[in-house]
C-alpha cells in the first residue's frame, strides 16, 4: 500500500471524521430548518439535502459558490466512513455483535436515503366523484404535450419535460413531423389579456398567444403556492416555421392546429405518469368533528380496474390507510370541496429499508446491552460466590 492510499484510508477510517461529519450534519439540519421560512420545504430539500454542496449566489450575479457541504456529500462520507471503519478497524467478535448489527442498520439507513433520493417519485391524483383516470400528475414538474388527435379513438402524445424547454434544446422526435424550438421559457409567469394598445408585440404568432401578455415573476417557494411556467414554442417543419405558440398550464386546454393532414393539439400541463390501470372515484367522504370545521376523517372509495380485467375491485383509502398497488402507494392527502379527492401517489421501491434498518439498530442495541448485562450479572455472581 503506497502512502497516498494509506493517507486516504486513514482519513476515511478516522473517528475524528465521524465527529466532524455529525457536527456538520447538525449545522446543516439547523440551517435548513431556519431557511424553510424563506424557501419552503421543497426548495430546502433540494438546496440542503439533495445536493453535494449548498450553493450561494453572489449577489447581483448568477455565479453559484459552494459554501457548505450538502446532504449527499455528508451522507456519502458518513457511509464511506462507517463502512471503511468496519473493514479496517473493527473485528467481528460475539461480544461486539450488537455494535456491528447497529452499525449495519445505520449503513442501511444511509443507503436507503440515497436510494429514496434516486428512485422516489411523487405524484398526485385529483379525482371528482364519477371521474376515472389512469394517470397521476406531478406536483412540481410540467411538460409540453404535443398530441396527434387524428385517430377517433386514441391520442398519440409526445411529452417533453419542461426542463428541456428551459434548456432551450431543439427537439426532433420521430413521432413529430416538425422540430420543436423553444424561443423563451419563464419558470414562473403571470398571463394577462393583451390591452388593445401599449403592449409590446407577442412572440406568439398562432393560437391564443398573440392575445396574451406574459409577465415573468420571481420563483415562489411557499408551500401553498406553485410556480406557473410559460414558454413560447416554435414548430418548424421542412418548409419553414408553422408558427409560435404560447404554452402554459394556466391556459386550460391545449390549442388546436392542423398540419400534414393531421389534427394536433399543443399545450403545457402538469407532468403525467400513465399507469396500466384506472381508478374511478365512487364516493368521497369528509367528516368533521361535530360543531366544528376540524377534519376528523376523510376517505375515498374508488373502483380499481386493469385493462386486462385481472383486477376489478373496490378499494377504500383513508387517513393512515393507503392503497399499495403495482409498486405505488396511494395516500389520502387532501381534498377540494365536498366531492373532489386529492391522493398522493408515491413510488419508492426502497420504502422498506428505513423500517428494516430501524429494526436492526434496535435489535443491535438490545443485543449489545444484553451481552453487557449478562456479563455484569456473571461478574456479580462470581464476586458474591
Amino acid at each position, binding site marked *: 500500500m503506497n502512502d497516498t492510499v494509506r493517507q*486516504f*484510508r486513514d482519513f*476515511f477510517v478516522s473517528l475524528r471524521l465521524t465527529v466532524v461529519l455529525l457536527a456538520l450534519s447538525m449545522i446543516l439540519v439547523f440551517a435548513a430548518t431556519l431557511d424553510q421560512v424563506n424557501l419552503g420545504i*421543497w426548495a430546502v430539500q433540494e438546496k440542503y439535502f*439533495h445536493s*453535494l454542496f449548498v450553493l450561494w449566489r453572489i449577489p447581483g450575479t448568477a455565479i453559484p459558490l459552494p459554501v457548505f457541504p450538502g446532504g*449527499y*456529500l455528508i451522507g*456519502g462520507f458518513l*457511509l*464511506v466512513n462507517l463502512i471503511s471503519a468496519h*473493514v479496517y478497524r473493527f473485528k467481528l467478535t460475539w461480544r461486539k455483535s450488537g455494535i456491528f448489527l447497529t452499525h449495519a442498520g445505520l449503513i442501511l439507513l444511509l443507503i436507503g436515503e*440515497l436510494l429514496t*433520493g*434516486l428512485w422516489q417519485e*411523487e405524484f398526485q391524483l*385529483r379525482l371528482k366523484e364519477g371521474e376515472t383516470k389512469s*394517470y397521476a*400528475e406531478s*406536483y412540481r414538474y410540467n411538460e409540453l404535450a404535443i398530441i396527434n*388527435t387524428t385517430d*377517433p379513438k*386514441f*391520442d*398519440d*402524445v*409526445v*411529452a*417533453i*419535460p419542461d426542463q*428541456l424547454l428551459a434548456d432551450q434544446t431543439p*427537439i426532433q*422526435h420521430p413521432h413529430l413531423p416538425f422540430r420543436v424550438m423553444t424561443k423563451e421559457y419563464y419558470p414562473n409567469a*403571470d*398571463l*394577462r*389579456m393583451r*390591452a*388593445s394598445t401599449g403592449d409590446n408585440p407577442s412572440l406568439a404568432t398562432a393560437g*391564443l398567444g398573440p*392575445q396574451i401578455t406574459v409577465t415573468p415573476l420571481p420563483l415562489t417557494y411557499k408551500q*401553498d403556492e*406553485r410556480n*406557473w411556467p410559460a414558454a413560447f414554442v416554435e414548430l418548424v417543419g421542412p418548409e419553414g416555421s408553422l408558427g409560435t405558440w404560447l404554452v402554459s398550464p*394556466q*391556459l*386550460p*386546454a*391545449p390549442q*388546436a392546429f392542423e398540419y400534414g393532414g393531421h389534427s394536433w*393539439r399543443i*399545450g403545457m*400541463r*402538469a407532468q403525467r405518469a*400513465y399507469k396500466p390501470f384506472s381508478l374511478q372515484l365512487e364516493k368521497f367522504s369528509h367528516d368533521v368533528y361535530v360543531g366544528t370545521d376540524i377534519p376528523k376523517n376523510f376517505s375515498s372509495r374508488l373502483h380499481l380496474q386493469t385493462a386486462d380485467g385481472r383486477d376489478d375491485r373496490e378499494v377504500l383509502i383513508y387517513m393512515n390507510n393507503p392503497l399499495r398497488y403495482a409498486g405505488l402507494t396511494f395516500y389520502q*392527502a*387532501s*381534498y*377540494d*370541496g365536498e366531492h373532489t379527492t386529492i391522493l398522493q401517489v408515491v413510488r419508492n421501491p426502497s420504502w422498506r429499508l428505513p423500517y428494516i434498518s430501524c429494526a436492526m439498530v434496535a435489535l443491535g442495541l438490545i443485543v449489545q446491552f444484553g451481552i453487557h448485562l449478562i456479563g455484569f450479572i456473571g461478574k456479580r455472581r462470581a464476586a458474591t460466590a
Partner: protein
Amino acid sequence: MRHRHALLSLVSLTLLAACRESKVESYRVPKEKPEELPPGMAAGGSPGAPAAPGSMDMASTTVPTASGSDLTWTAPAHWKAKPAAAMRKGSFTVPGDNGAEADLSITAFPGDVGGELANLNRWRGQIQLAPLSEGDLRGVTTRIEQHGLTFIVVDFANTDAAGPRRILGAIVPYNNATWFFKLTGPDALVAREKPAFLAFLQTISAPAPAAP
C-alpha cells in the same frame, strides 16, 4: 487497492444521486372526455393542475383580463365563495337540500373562444344533451342588454338522465374577451336558483372609465 475501488464506487454512487433524467416520451392513450371547464376551450386539457401537497386548493392566479379591468358583480348572500382557481375569475358553491350542491363558475378568455354555438354545444355536451344547429340558437337563447353589456342567457336541462342536471349560463363579450357565467348542478336545485341567478346577472357591470 481492492478497498480503494470500493470507496471510489461508493463516492460515484453518491455523486450520481444528484442527477435526474429528463427525456422525451411518446405514448398512445384512449381519447379523454372533454373537461368541464372552461366552455369553448375544453378538449382534453388539465385545468385542475395539481397543488402542492397538503394544500386545499391550487394557488390563486390572476386570469388574463382586458387592460386589467374586470367585470364586477354581487353574489347572493347564500352562495358560498370558493377560492378562485386557475383561469376562474370567481367561484361559488350554491348549497341545496340534503347536501346537494351546484357550482357557479366565472371565467374569461381572450377572443370569442370558438363562437356562441360551439360554446353552447359544449355546455350541452356536459349534461349529455344533443348539440344544437345554428338555426336552433334563436329559440334557446335570451339576449339581455344592460349596463352597456350584452348577455346571451341559456337554460339547458337534461331531465332524462339518472341524475337530472341543469345548466344556467350567460355569455358576455366584453373588451375583446368572452366572459362565461355558468351555474351547473342538480336540475331541481339549479331550477330553484334561477331567480337568484338572473338577479345576480343584473349586478354584473363593467368598471366606469377612468376620469381623464
